């Protein structure tokens, strides 16, 4: 009996270690330090190379959406628009493909955590793919395709509002848990409307441009929490001179960080209460707990990152043409869009943690009945260790979407010009400058210049 008990206990330990040693239970971010540094010093080509080199070492098949999102964005910032489109298209394709849920991986996620699942992209990542693909197509002079991307963005945004309603409803019906739907207020996007406006102006669809302009203004008026800054001027309808559109991207989109709660419960209700501003609701109630429970609840929240850039000046042929105006806080929108899915993430986390606790309790009882109290306690201990070690939140998120976008529109006589984007910090010190020399500006083309500084 004693020898059999020892064998079972060793197997339990072996099973725990097999899972602990598996790379599927934690999010690895160590590849980012060099890439971040190169972006900080403005060396986007080296940052891109760093990511390409890290592919085999840090990304498995389940991370392919994450990889292609990051690759697509770094190609974009490196002004390689064709490659950026290829990568972002792959990311978009795999996001859609992953809507086909794999039960086998779902089970693995239920046993371990969401890190075991293929990363299928956050909703804000999915929609921003289309903004950057649209910009890529503009740089590649494929304006019809650029407009297709704006329309795709709009479709996804409209679909987002109801995307999780049914899933939350079904979740609540099938589990002993009630998760609330988050309050949500992102229905219209200023940057997408602005891009649509300049594209429709270029193709001569003046009515469509006017509609985009109206929606552009409404994005600011109706969503003051997302657009908590003054709106830039809408694109002009026409001008006798050549119109030049200037776009900048600075900072980085919020990062996922883990919020951890340890719950020691002896009643039959788990009342999960959060006052975190990053979570779109306050409480989750779980009924049906029996006996004592030690729970570790860990789930991701989005946290804004610092942006060293305060304002950006545009200089043309050594003459200042003023400052770009903020048009989009990717940060605000990411936080808002993430609220939609967060109740489900937290609900599933609670269910999974409870399941692990129940299995641990049941295993203890079985082992105690068959092999004695000592082994029973050890089994429970192993179960608790297993839960605490495997209950890690999925912190994967595309890292290289920007934090802020600013725009300006200037009018110039047709000709060749040298442009400089000068980035200043809060102390009015220039921290970065990007030059575009001998750029031909014409009246009959869409003159768009884009610069970025992803300083950290």
């Amino acid at each position, binding site marked *: 009996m004693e020898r059999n008990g020892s*064998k079972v206990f060793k197997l339990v330990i072996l099973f725990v270690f097999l899972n602990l040693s598996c790379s599927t239970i934690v999010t690895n971010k160590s590849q980012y330090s060099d890439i971040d540094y190169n972006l900080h010093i403005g060396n986007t080509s080296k940052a891109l190379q760093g990511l390409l080199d890290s592919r085999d070492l840090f990304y498995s098949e389940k991370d392919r959406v994450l990889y292609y999102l990051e690759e697509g964005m770094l190609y974009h910032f490196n002004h390689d628009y064709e490659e950026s489109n290829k990568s972002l298209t792959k990311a978009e394709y795999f996001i859609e493909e992953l809507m086909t849920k*794999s039960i086998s991986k779902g089970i693995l996620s239920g046993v371990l955590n969401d890190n075991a699942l293929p990363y299928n992209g956050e909703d804000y990542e999915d929609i921003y793919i289309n903004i950057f693909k649209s910009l890529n197509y503009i740089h590649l002079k494929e304006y019809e395709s650029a407009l*297709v991307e704006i329309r795709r963005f709009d479709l996804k945004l409209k679909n987002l509002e*109801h995307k999780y309603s049914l899933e939350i409803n079904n979740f609540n019906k099938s589990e002993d848990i009630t998760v609330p739907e988050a309050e949500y207020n992102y229905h219209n996007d200023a940057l997408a409307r602005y891009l649509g406006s300049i594209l429709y102006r270029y193709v001569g669809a003046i009515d469509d441009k006017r509609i985009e302009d109206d929606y552009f203004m409404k994005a600011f008026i109706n969503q003051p929490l997302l657009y908590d800054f003054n709106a830039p001027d809408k694109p002009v309808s026409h001008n006798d001179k050549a119109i030049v559109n200037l776009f900048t991207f600075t900072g980085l989109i919020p990062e996922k960080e883990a919020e951890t709660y340890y719950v020691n419960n002896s009643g039959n209700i788990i009342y999960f209460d959060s006052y975190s501003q990053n979570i779109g609701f306050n409480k989750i109630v779980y009924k049906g707990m029996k006996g004592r429970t030690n729970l570790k609840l860990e789930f991701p929240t989005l946290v804004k990152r610092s942006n060293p850039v305060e304002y950006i000046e545009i200089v043309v042929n050594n003459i200042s043409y003023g400052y770009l105006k903020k048009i989009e806080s990717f940060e605000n929108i990411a936080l808002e869009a993430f609220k939609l899915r967060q109740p489900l993430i937290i609900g599933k986390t609670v269910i999974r943690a409870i399941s692990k606790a129940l299995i641990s309790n049941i295993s203890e009882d079985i082992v105690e009945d068959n092999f004695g109290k000592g082994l029973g306690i050890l089994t429970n201990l192993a179960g608790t260790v297993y839960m605490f070690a495997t209950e890690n939140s999925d912190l994967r998120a595309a890292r290289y979407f920007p934090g802020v976008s600013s725009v300006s529109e200037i009018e110039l006589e047709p000709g060749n010009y040298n442009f400089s984007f000068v980035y200043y910090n809060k102390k009015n010190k220039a921290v970065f400058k990007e030059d575009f020399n001998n750029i031909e500006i014409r009246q009959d083309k869409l003159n768009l210049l884009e610069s970025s500084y992803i300083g950290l």
Partner: protein
Amino acid sequence: MKKIIFIISIFLIIGCQSSNNRVLRVSSDIETDLSGRWNDTDSALVSENMINDLLNRDVLSRFKKNGMKPVLIVGSIRNNSSEHINVNTFVKDIERELINSGKVKIVASSTERLELREEKEDQKINSSLVTTKKIAQETGADLMLIGNIFTITDQLNSTRVVYYQVDLELIDLESNEKIWIGTKKHKKVIELGGTKW
């Protein structure tokens, strides 16, 4: 004990799956709808349907001069949809249907003409006098066909409905009179994935 080893083995095997590409050649007549997006089948069906409509109406007869067939050029078909549609293949499908009907002549598009003129310039230098083609002998079109492709997309969870509308307009090049407008609408219901192992 054997059962436990078996369960552990399954967990180890899950991470070791591999996939191999497989190519199956099929006839281009076979309908294939993988993603639900606009594809070669849609292009061929819509062009055939619309050109049949055009040819079955008696709008071209007044452009027959001295028994000569009316000359038509296919202009721009604009993609105003939310899908990346290869408009060039649609234009070629339309041209093919028109030529194969034998009721009209089709002349080269503006971009094709530039290439042809370049070739004729080259012939003037490099071809024999007998075989060199003359310039300023091109056939001018009587009519231009232009169009738009629109989509309306509706989606609830994993069901997506895409409504395509293709509008074609035939315009008299001399008077700018629109002599025919054809509209083809069709709907696709796409189930985005299911549950699979």
